[in-house]
């Protein structure tokens, strides 16, 4: 290790890492090598073991086997405290900030500047301002974290790690909650921080990010490191192939249906008029929204999360009361109808949160495949188990749900297969209108392709589809019309041909609006 190597010592070298959780082998022979001062991508499908590997690096979990070196020093089995002291900082996907404290207080938390035995608030603010200037991470030290946007909160998270002296920054899916301008800003910050000598590992499954900002890539699959490549020498297709282990068609697909446009029947598939919905904290979470989706059309709503999408979706599905306005399915008013009545009226719903809404994790695959339809699977006084089993066998085959075991608890399935259960159930029922919320969230590349195809087929079969997604790419790939939701309003609605990331970005941040 100490031999005078011609190449400089790597910032991070992990070799032969094995980590087991119960019966699951999260990492087996996983490894990564990151050079000093580079931006390195760690990619892989959900469940490939990326986060586990990074948790081992940051000392949150010990490896069962293998070797971890930081800056050429063997640090195998170190603790989080040791990792922080050595300058390894992790920015988690879910922010770990105290909402009732200010930005400055959050940044210095655990390492507060002290004068005469008490917390030196003025110095904390000064330190944070100084750091903010150096790194280009713009924050307002005196603001409460609770009042920040997601993008600002993330900047605070990164500042916090830098404040603790991080020289190696691990970012776990940092763009999942950001709008395009915020993403661009983040890349700017990372590049600046990198110039100052910080090494960055970016955990992601978004290939455009990998291509845009990183220099080298480590690909994991099934807990193993399967490829290491230089970004300049590969293509998104090449990375996807390494991630999935087979060829994958990326994005695009059939452009906004030529066939369906011709066959588009007139009429109203799914419509809301002047809808107002109260949110948990906001009086007008949905503020006077109207739209109408024709049969055979996909209306995509883009927008940063937390702009009223959840309230809109819940109100349409019957899970949240409406303050004013109306909702209609196939021209039939269902504003006050129960969830079940809406289903019977032809509404199908892929909910945005499959773990809390879409699935009962302890129930079997077969039982989950009839959730919401249980009143149609009754024979005499009891449930018709034979029909439930037959339905399960059919859906599992048709939607390629793995493992193909109808009596397995859904909890035991991978994220992609769990989502397939939801999709299978909602697309196989008898419906005219579909609400698809974040249909590919937390789903691996292979399953995304499958789900997008299924949504296109439903559109071509004449269903009216409302697609709400935080992934702008997804909205652009699938929709016939694109709207942007900001602050509870649809601030713009464009035909697909007129929409792209540059046009929509300003609307997503609220910089532009086009409301009458």
């Amino acid at each position, binding site marked *: 290790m100490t031999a005078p190597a011609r190449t400089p010592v790597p910032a991070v070298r992990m070799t032969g890492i094995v980590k087991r959780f119960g*019966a699951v*082998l999260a990492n087996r022979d996983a490894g990564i090598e990151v050079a000093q001062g580079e931006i390195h991508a760690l990619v892989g499908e959900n469940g490939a073991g990326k986060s586990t590997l990074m948790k081992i690096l940051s000392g949150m979990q010990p490896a069962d086997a293998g070797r971890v070196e930081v800056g050429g020093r063997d640090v195998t089995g170190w603790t989080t405290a040791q990792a922080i002291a050595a300058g390894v900082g992790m920015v988690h996907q879910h922010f770990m900030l105290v909402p009732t404290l200010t930005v400055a207080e959050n940044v210095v938390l655990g390492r507060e500047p002290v004068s005469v035995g008490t917390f030196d608030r003025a110095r904390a603010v000064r330190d944070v301002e100084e750091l903010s200037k150096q790194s280009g991470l713009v924050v307002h030290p005196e603001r409460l974290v609770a009042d920040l946007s997601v993008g600002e909160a993330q900047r605070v998270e990164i500042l916090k790690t830098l404040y603790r002296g991080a020289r190696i920054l691990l970012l776990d899916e940092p763009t999942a909650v950001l709008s395009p301008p915020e993403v661009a800003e983040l890349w700017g910050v990372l590049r600046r921080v990198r110039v100052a000598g910080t090494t960055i590992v970016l955990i992601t499954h978004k290939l455009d990010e990998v291509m845009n900002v990183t220099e080298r890539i480590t690909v994991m699959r099934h807990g193993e490191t399967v490829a290491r490549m230089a970004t300049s020498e590969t293509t998104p297709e090449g990375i996807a192939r390494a991630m999935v282990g087979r060829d994958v068609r990326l994005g695009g697909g059939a452009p906004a249906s030529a066939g369906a446009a011709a066959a588009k029947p007139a009429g109203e598939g799914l419509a809301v008029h002047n809808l107002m919905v109260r949110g948990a904290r906001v009086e007008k979470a949905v503020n006077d929204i109207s739209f109408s989706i024709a049969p055979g059309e996909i209306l995509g709503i883009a927008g940063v999360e937390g702009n009223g999408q959840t309230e809109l979706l819940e109100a349409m599905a019957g899970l949240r009361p409406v303050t004013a306005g109306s909702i209609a399915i196939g021209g039939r008013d269902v504003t006050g109808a129960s969830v079940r009545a809406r289903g019977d009226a032809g509404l199908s719903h892929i909910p945005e949160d499959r773990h809390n809404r879409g699935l*009962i994790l302890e129930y079997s695959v077969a039982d989950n495949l009839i959730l919401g339809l249980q009143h149609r699977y009754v024979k005499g006084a009891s449930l018709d188990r034979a029909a439930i089993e037959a339905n399960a066998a059919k859906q599992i085959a048709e939607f390629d749900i793995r493992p193909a075991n109808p009596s397995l608890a859904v909890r035991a399935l991978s994220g992609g297969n769990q989502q397939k259960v939801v999709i299978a159930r909602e697309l196989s029922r008898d419906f005219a209108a579909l609400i698809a919320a974040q249909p590919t969230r937390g789903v691996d590349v292979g399953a995304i392709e499958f789900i997008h195809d299924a949504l296109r087929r439903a559109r071509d079969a004449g269903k009216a589809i409302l697609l709400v997604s935080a992934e702008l790419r997804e909205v652009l790939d699938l929709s016939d019309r694109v709207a942007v939701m900001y602050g509870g309003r649809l601030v713009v609605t464009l035909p697909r041909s007129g929409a792209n990331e540059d046009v929509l970005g300003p609307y997503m941040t609220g910089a532009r609006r086009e409301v009458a």
Partner: protein
Amino acid sequence: MRRTAFAESVLPPIVALGIILVAGDLLILAYGEAPGAVWRTLAEGTWGNAYGIGQVLYKATTLTCTGLAVAIGLRAGLFNIGAESQLAAGGFGAALVGMALPASTPWIFAVAGCVAAAAIAGAGAGAVPGVLRAKFGAHEVIVTIMMNFIVLALLNYIVAARLHVPETLHTPTIQAGALPRLSSAFAAFHGSAANWSLLIVLAIVAGAWWYLFRTRAGFELRAVGLQPGAAEYGGVDLPRTLVRALTVSGALAGLGGINFVLGYKGYYEDGFAGGAGFLGIAVALVGRNHPVGVLVAALFFATLSQGGLAINAMVPKQMVEVLQGVVILAVAASVPEVRRTVRQAAGRRIGKTDPTPPGNAGAATTPGSVG
């Protein structure tokens, strides 16, 4: 996988039993007695002779009902602490109908009427907290505890002021609907309180299983208990399901009343529930909220309770109450712990011999934590 599932369900009670035996040994030694002799006396006094068996069966009959009541509530995510008063209300309902019906009522109708009255009275006591929870969000734990005081005091007043046989705190004997003792068919059970209501309760166990796992109502009830958000999404009417769950829970507890009223004494007596409603919480916990588990747990607690009387001469019978507490702690602690160990062992086995990628084999047991 199947072997793991089997080990996960069978091992925890065995481990819990081991803990109980060790704790019991220590207690017995502390009293200066020989553990072997005490355990033998306990076994002989319960399962060692027909009378003991009869007494165990009698106690288990009531406990099964109250255990089922608590279990059904927990399946819906509701903690019914009111089984004690629901049990009393059920017994009172059965007694009222039994007293009101003429002695000439055909036996089958009289029994059916009394059983139905027990269920309805218990259901009424359960529905009140259910409605308060669904309509006003009043927490069912608080309301069921309060209902215990209200219902028991009310019954005490009615019996003491209006219905009692002089010099006693019980009602007159029922004229119709009485169930014969087991000893009428099997003379060996002579003297024990076991009676044919245990057959009715066995049918109730089967019915509770069917309701929970085979009907749409049960499907929705369990869904609400596991994930209310997903149940709501699945078109389940949450308030109605909460009311229904507590009503059914109350009915099950109320049905326990027939054991004493129809099968044993033939009248309602103040305080007959005697803690069986509260012990139902422990029965449901140990029985893991499964009807068959509840039945087994009820037999177990009934054995301990009857065994306490058998060993009273050697050690204080309160030792048994201590052991009941140990059972609950042992089960609560050993179930997750043993499962974890079983899973780890299974994980090692798979790691060594199974070359399937973790995406297939591993995903089947532990989710989520990998990413």
